[in-house]
Structure formats: structure tokens, C-alpha cells
């Protein structure tokens, strides 16, 4: 009986490993394509396990062509800027919506819920017109603003429950000790919602890192261009140079994998809390 139970437990692991491998096959295929020589890419039948490995695609696209590092840096500036701006704006609002008596709370919440669902094109179009009138096209600022607009509603909605779970009375105690509202917020409340801030921070970074539409519409200058737009134009120019494409793709998801590994717990939490409630 006990033996049976153990066997079924490992059976479950084996099935789970198998289905995970099957599910993640595309990611494996991306990596494998990037390290195959040209001849092997078009081999029939395809080599599921590569026979000889070379890193020509990486040399060609990164070492011989350091321009890509600029795009990499640009992506970091845009995603990092979005992260910072989102956190600065979202945390106080979420706190106020959770803990303070504010008029019109209901309307604000519903607006945020709907805003979170807006298609990017619905914002990208007016942004293009307004930013071109304000001479803001081709600037990091325009992209940071655009990305913050789409992550801010989500950030507020995810952060609010974190503030709500802080025990009441903390603010009063801090007030008795002579802290004003702002000092209480920064010194006492914020450190308590660190997990929430990590969740929101990782999401807003990842959203901005993956954005294509805003960057495509709001920039034409190579000096501002992020990695995603580079990959998009690359597909257009070198449609069948699959090993190069996959090498660039592989490198661009490395930061994502690192963030994911570091903040995995928070990301899973954010997905379930922010999207359902």
C-alpha cells in the first residue's frame, strides 16, 4: 500500500516533467536553433539534438555588431524608468485607497479596473498625436510615460490588498510618536509591503521590457530603440536568418529569466491577486 503510494507520487512527477518539457519545447527549440550552424538549421529531418554546436550567430550579432548593446541598454532605461515611476506613483495611491477615507473611492476603483484592460493601440494612437504636438516623440520620457500608463492601474490594484493587510493602529501609534502622515508612510508602512512592491516592480519592468507597440509608434530614432523593435525590424530584414534571430531572442529573454528566478514567488502571487480580484 505504502509502496504503491510512493510509486504513484513519482509517477505524477514523471508525467509532470514530461508535460513541462513538451510545453517548453518551443523555448528549447529557440535556443537550439541559435547554436546550430546554418547547414544544420535546414537539415531534413531536423536535428532535435544538435550534432555540432557553434556560436557563430552570437558572434555575428553581438561581438561583430555592438550596436545591439545600445538597444539592450535602451530597453533597460525604459523598463527601469517605468519601474521607478510606477512604484512612486502607485504606492501612495494604493495606500490611500486601502487605508484612508477618500471620496469617490468606488469610481476610482472601477476606472482602474477598466483601464487595466485597455488595448495598447487605444492609447498608442492618441499618444502619438499628443506627443508629436509636444515634441516628445523619440524620447525615453515618452516611452516611460506610455508604459507607466499601462502598468499603473494594475500596480495600484495589486498593491492595495497588501496595504489592507497591515494591522490597524500602526498609523495611530506612529502619530503618537510624533510621525506625520508622510513620515509614517515612508518609514513604517512602506517597508511592511515590500513583497507587494517587489511584485509590482517585477511586473512593470517585465511589461515595459516586452512592449513593442508603444516603441514602434513613438520612436523612429535608433538611439532610443529598444530590443523588441530591433527584433521586429530584424525579422523584416533577415526573414530567414533563423539562427541570428533566435540568438537575439535568446539573449533578450535572459534578463527575464533572471528576474523570474529571483522574484518567482512574488510574480505568481501578483498574477493571482491582481487579475482575479
Amino acid at each position, binding site marked *: 500500500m505504502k509502496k504503491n503510494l510512493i510509486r504513484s507520487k513519482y509517477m505524477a512527477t514523471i508525467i509532470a516533467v514530461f508535460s513541462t518539457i513538451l510545453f517548453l519545447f518551443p523555448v528549447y*527549440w529557440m535556443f537550439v536553433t541559435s547554436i546550430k550552424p546554418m547547414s544544420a538549421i535546414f537539415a531534413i529531418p531536423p536535428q532535435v539534438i544538435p550534432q555540432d554546436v557553434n556560436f557563430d550567430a552570437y558572434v555575428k550579432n553581438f561581438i561583430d555588431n555592438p550596436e545591439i548593446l545600445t538597444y539592450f541598454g535602451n530597453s533597460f532605461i525604459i523598463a527601469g524608468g517605468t519601474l521607478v515611476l510606477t512604484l512612486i*506613483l502607485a504606492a501612495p495611491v494604493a495606500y490611500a485607497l486601502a487605508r484612508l477615507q477618500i471620496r469617490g473611492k468606488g469610481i476610482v476603483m472601477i476606472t482602474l479596473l477598466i483601464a487595466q*484592460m485597455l488595448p495598447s493601440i487605444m492609447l498608442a494612437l492618441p499618444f502619438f498625436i499628443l506627443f508629436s504636438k509636444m515634441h516628445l516623440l523619440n524620447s525615453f520620457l515618452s516611452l516611460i510615460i506610455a508604459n507607466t500608463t499601462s502598468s499603473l492601474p494594475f500596480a495600484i490594484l495589486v498593491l492595495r490588498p497588501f496595504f489592507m493587510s497591515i494591522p490597524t493602529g500602526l498609523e495611530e501609534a506612529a502619530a503618537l510618536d510624533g510621525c506625520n*502622515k508622510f513620515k509614517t*508612510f515612508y518609514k513604517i508602512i512602506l517597508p511592511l509591503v515590500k513583497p507587494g512592491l517587489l511584485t509590482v516592480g517585477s511586473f512593470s519592468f517585465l511589461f515595459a521590457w516586452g512592449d513593442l507597440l508603444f516603441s514602434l509608434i513613438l520612436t523612429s530614432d535608433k538611439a532610443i530603440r529598444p530590443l523588441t523593435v530591433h527584433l521586429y525590424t530584424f525579422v523584416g530584414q533577415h526573414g530567414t536568418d533563423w539562427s541570428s534571430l533566435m540568438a537575439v531572442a535568446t539573449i533578450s529573454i535572459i534578463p527575464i529569466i533572471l528576474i523570474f528566478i529571483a522574484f518567482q514567488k512574488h510574480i505568481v502571487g501578483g498574477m*493571482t491577486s491582481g487579475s482575479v480580484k
Partner: protein
Amino acid sequence: MYTIFANGGGILMQTETQQTPLVKKAATYKKRKTKYAEKLGKYMFIIPGMTFLLVFLIFPIGYNIMISFKDLTAMNLLGEQKFVGLQNYITILKDKLFFLSLKNSVVFTGVCLIFQFIIGLLLALFFNQKFPGRNILRSLILMAWMIPLVITGTLFKWMFAGEYGIINHFLLWVGIIDQPVQWVSNASTSLYSTIIANIWIGIPFNMVILLAALQSLPEELYEAAKVDGAGRIRRFFSITLPLLKPTMFILIMLGIIYTFKVFDIILIMTGGGPVHSSTVLPFYAYERAFTDFNFSLGATVTTIMLILLILVSSVYLWMVRKEEQE
């Protein structure tokens, strides 16, 4: 003294100990002032964020609606535009391509939703068991959802490639097809190749949400059902499914909203083609605005989308509220 009590609380304590009428008056004034300050302080928390949203979210949407009644194109972008009333809406509603895109959007959303949901549910049920390595494997699956859509799109384009794509090889090997299919460049299959890519992206999301819901179900119910002799399948249909219903409804609503706005995958994989066979509504709006440079027509399409979105999300909000009340 004052240097020690440099903050508001210190000053108040100081005034309360004094008893002369004038100081008392000053004290109540100060109290009233702090009350106002407090009220203002409260709103100081939401003013920066709300101002941002007002300027960069509400205003652009309003502006977008406004230009749908004008004739704004790349030609008169910085000049004067005149009001044309409902002309843009008439143009769009007379365009056959609009209805084709609407149809494609409905097919795209519907098929994606069904498969994402079913596969997500199966995975969630499976991962709801306790077995070694469960959390790591679940996280690995989730990673697929975090990959930027440009990359996923490029990757699936490569896998769907005609001669050398792995999917054709597999299907040939299994014997489902007897010659390579030009998935992406064939009008009858292009939409479905983007659908398959999008299903792959959506599975982890559905799985995680359903798994979280499954894990919150009360275990005692299952124990009781077991005692009563209910089998696995019976327990699923009599306990799991009814209890999961609210989450399922919300997930489907969110699925509709999120899938309806998919744009990147289409742009990368098919560019809406060939001959508009994979043009969905957001892509149709994008083309009006940034291929034809007729911004007003683009704004008209996105305004129509906004109306559809509000309709769907009111159903969603109504359900969330209902669930919260229960």
C-alpha cells in the same frame, strides 16, 4: 524646548499646557489648521498618481473619442481639422474589412479561450496533486507567459515555417499531412497559426489562476465525499466544478478582454495577411492609423472597441461584485 519638539505634535503639546485665552484661541486655530492640513495631506497621497492618470490615461482616451469625429490625418496633423460628425463611423461601418476583422477577432478570441481554458484546467488539476518538484515545474511553465510577445511570435513563425519548420516535420512524420503546409503564408491557415501561438501563451495564466482557486477549496468537503463513497469523477463534477464556477466565469471574462486586444503576435507572425486573412480588430485600427495615416479612422475603430470593452467589462464587474457579496 522648541528645537527638541520640532514637529507638529511637539508644538501642540506646548500650546495645550498654556491657559491664557489668547493662546487658547491660537491653539484652536492651530488645531483647525492641522485638521485642514490633515485632510489635504490625505489627498496628497492620491493627487500625484491620479493627476498622472488623468493627464495620460483619461485625457488621451477622451481625445481619441474626439478625433473620431474629426478628419485628422498625417497631412493636417499640426494644422486645423474640421468636425465631420459621424462620417468616420459611416465609413468604417461600410467597410467590408471591418467586419472581416471583427469576425477574425471573434474566431481568434473564441478558439484561444476554449483551448487555453481546457488545457489550463487540466494542468491545474494535475498540479493540484502533491508530488516532488511540483513548484519548480509550475514556475517553469509560467515562464512561457513572461516571454515578450515579439519573441514568442518570432519563435512560432520559425516553428511554423513551410519547408524547414519543426511543426511540419512533426506532422509529416506522424502522417497527418503528406506535404508541408505553408502555415503562415496561406490565407486559410494563417489565423490558426497565430491562434496556436496565443494558446501557448495563455495556458500558464489559466493554469495559475485555476490552481490558486483549486488550492483554496475546503479539503473537508472532499474527505466527506470520500466517506460517502463518491469516486474521483463524481467528486470533480459535484464539488470541484460548482465551487470553481465563480473563478471560471471571471477567468473567461478576463480571457475575452485580454485575447481581444492581442496585437503583437499578429504583427510579427503574419502582418495581418495574407489578404487580411489574419487581420483582427486592433490590427485593423493600427493599419488605418499607421499604414494609411488616417488617424481619425483609427480612432473611430478604437472607440468602437472601447464600447465593446465597456460592455464586456460591465458584465465582469457585475460578476466580481456578486462574488464578493456572497
